[in-house]
């Protein structure tokens, strides 16, 4: 086992070195909006930029549009030379360029647009209240101050502070995608930005608490529709397409779509691995993202595994009892239905269905949702593992026990299960390893698991290599420890018989 661990470490180390030595990115070839045709263009999935650039895709010149979940990922791809340009809103573009000296914004702007908050069509009263609040903070200059605090020469000088003595009653939940500086982004683990402050000002005016939920940009409208969030504020432009599904508040600011490209003059090697490591993990205690993620991943995987064992055990006993004795027809039917559905659909879709559909309008802890989703999913696989273990026991064991007058239940408990459990242990361990790694999709419901923790760091530092490799290493170590424990248990069970 140690040998394999060493080999795996070597692989990761060589990856480090390989990335360090890789050749420089290609030169910029986009100098105006007209040059975009025929190039690889990056956008954030579901944004106005996405809609606008999609027209290029059909112009026959071979334009490719790469759609990223986050603006940060598009910027990263641009830096690495995977794409030629990124079309994005002007303010985030400015902050991206500020932190990435090798990028620049083309002078020519792409298009102008209005930002507004999206609100469910079923909540006209909420829309009216928000519009009233918006009018007030526009009229008294609060909104201008908030915007000036993030954009322009006086940035940072006029932070928004909630007035004292506000009586708060109830909570407004805001859906956003916190990778859109300066509208919303993580700062010291907290979501801040123009939208966040504006929403706070609105909540203060309405006398409510504000809770900000971070999720993928294209999930925001779904979240607002299903009632997971009361409104969405994420630099969202009002479009005809969106109006079909959702209502919008009054406009609170206008923005432009611009094109970011690589600056040929400024491209240079950026920092060594040690610098990068410091920046990725030590600055602002960013390692906390990994730690929080690790804690959640372990919690989810552990509880889901327990739940999976319980479900799997019950299902396996019902199914094999049916197979052996022909009883429990209804139970067997239900179990088969469960197995077919769970094994026939992707885990990620199940997770999203449980979060957005089943618990759509209920406020529920995301970790609990993840435990439920992964537990129910794992149960199906564990059930089949247990069942194969039970069916692998020679029928003579049942017959011998029956001939002694032992009931089916007693036969199961004292004769069949102890043997079956030992037989299935390796397969069971494998299922738990798969489960542990599968929890990495928890990020899709906006839960900070280990993978998502690394993602957040990547979105802040624009370094893909170290966060991903560290996350991979942590998973690897967990799996190695788990395998070692199982091996020990297996040996102990076997020594009983020798």
């Amino acid at each position, binding site marked *: 086992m140690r040998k394999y661990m060493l080999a795996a470490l070597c692989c990761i180390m060589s990856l480090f070195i390989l990335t360090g030595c890789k050749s420089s990115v290609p030169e910029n070839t986009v100098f105006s909006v007209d040059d975009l045709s025929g190039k690889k263009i990056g956008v954030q999935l579901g944004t106005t930029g996405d809609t606008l650039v999609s027209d290029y895709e059909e112009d026959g010149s071979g334009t490719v549009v790469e759609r990223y979940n986050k603006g940060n990922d598009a910027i990263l791809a641009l830096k690495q030379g995977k794409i030629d340009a990124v079309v994005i809103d002007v303010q985030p573009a400015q902050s991206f360029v500020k932190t990435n000296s090798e990028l620049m914004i083309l002078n020519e702007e792409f298009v102008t647009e209005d930002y507004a908050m999206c609100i469910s069509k079923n909540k006209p009263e909420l829309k009216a209240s928000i519009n009233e609040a918006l009018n007030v903070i526009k009229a008294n200059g609060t909104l201008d101050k908030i915007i000036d605090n993030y954009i322009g020469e006086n940035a940072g000088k006029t932070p928004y502070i909630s007035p004292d003595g506000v009586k708060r009653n109830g909570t407004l939940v805001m859906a956003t995608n916190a990778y859109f500086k300066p509208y919303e982004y993580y700062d010291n683990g907290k979501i801040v930005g123009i939208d966040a402050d504006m929403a706070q000002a609105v909540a203060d005016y309405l006398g409510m608490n504000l809770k900000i939920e971070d999720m993928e940009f294209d999930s925001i409208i779904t979240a607002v529709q299903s009632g997971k969030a009361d409104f969405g504020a994420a630099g969202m432009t009002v479009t005809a397409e969106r109006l079909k599904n959702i209502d919008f508040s009054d406009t609170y600011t206008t923005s432009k779509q611009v094109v970011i490209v690589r600056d040929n003059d400024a491209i240079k090697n950026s920092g060594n691995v040690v610098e990068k490591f410091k920046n990725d993990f030590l600055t602002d205690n960013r390692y906390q993202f990994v730690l929080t993620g690790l804690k959640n991943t372990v919690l989810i995987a552990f509880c889901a595994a327990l739940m999976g064992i319980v479900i799997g055990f019950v299902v396996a006993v019902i199914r094999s009892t049916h197979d052996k004795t022909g009883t429990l027809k209804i139970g067997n039917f239900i179990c088969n239905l469960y197995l077919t559905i769970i094994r026939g659909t992707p885990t990620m879709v199940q997770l999203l269905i449980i979060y957005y559909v089943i618990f759509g309008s209920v406020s529920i802890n995301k970790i609990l949702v993840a435990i439920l989703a992964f537990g129910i999913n794992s149960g199906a696989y564990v059930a089949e593992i247990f069942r194969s273990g039970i069916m692998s026991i020679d029928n003579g*064991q049942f017959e011998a026990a029956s001939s002694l007058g032992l009931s089916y239940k007693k036969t199961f408990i004292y004769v069949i299960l102890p043997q079956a459990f030992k037989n299935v242990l390796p397969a069971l361990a494998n299922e738990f390893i798969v489960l542990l790694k599968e929890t990495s999709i928890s990020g899709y419901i906006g839960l900070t698991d280990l993978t998502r923790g690394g993602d957040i760091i990547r979105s802040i530092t624009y370094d893909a290599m170290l966060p991903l490799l560290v996350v991979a290493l942590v998973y690897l170590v967990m799996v190695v420890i788990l395998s070692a424990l199982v091996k020990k248990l297996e040996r102990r069970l076997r020594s009983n018989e020798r």
Partner: protein
Amino acid sequence: MSDNNSNDNIILKVEGLKKVFGDHVVLENINTTVKKGEVIAIIGPSGCGKSTFLRSLNLLEKPTEGHIYFHGTDITDKNVNINKLREKIGMVFQHFNLFPNMTVKKNIMLAPVQLKLMSEEEANKKALELLERVGLSDKADTYPNMLSGGQKQRVAIARAMAMNPDVMLFDEPTSALDPEMVGEVLGIIKELAESGMTMLIVTHEMGFAKEVANRCMFFADTKIMEENTPKELFENPQTPRLQDFLSKVL
């Protein structure tokens, strides 16, 4: 009919037993009675249904038609508690079927203790007694896969005996054994027979059948073709089927 059933001397009574697997008829219209103290050897060509017959007697095979009475109770009746009846019908299998997850002693103690027929202590005592009887006192705490085939079968006999059964069913108890181990198992069975245990033995050991049994059944073509004392059956076969069979096996 019911007079016969209530007779204390009759342990098993089989009436019109029929067994069908799919559309293959294995047994048809089997009628017989087993009295207390009888040792019955069942012989016949392979596939003649002799094992199926034996396994029907404790309902490991469900008869398609017919009735089987154990001490006058119809065990084919749906409302009968078959587990309770099986406690008194011991069975020994061709492949031993010991529980590999328990020691030899625990194999013997499991049923008496779990069925609350004996306390842990009593069962322990009984197990050691039986192990001594089958000559395996030193193996009490070993696991079955450390034993030879002959030893396993002797443990299996002890396990069945632990329930103090009224009748013992042996399903080809020596067929899976190496030749040099057949003797030790047959010795135990013979000793058991001499102690007055009622038993039915499906076997291919003709010499043993002749020596131990006081009745012999020859199964062929879905029925009991011939039934007689071993001496008569082996020395004076009536049907060509039996004559043919004996000429091949003797």
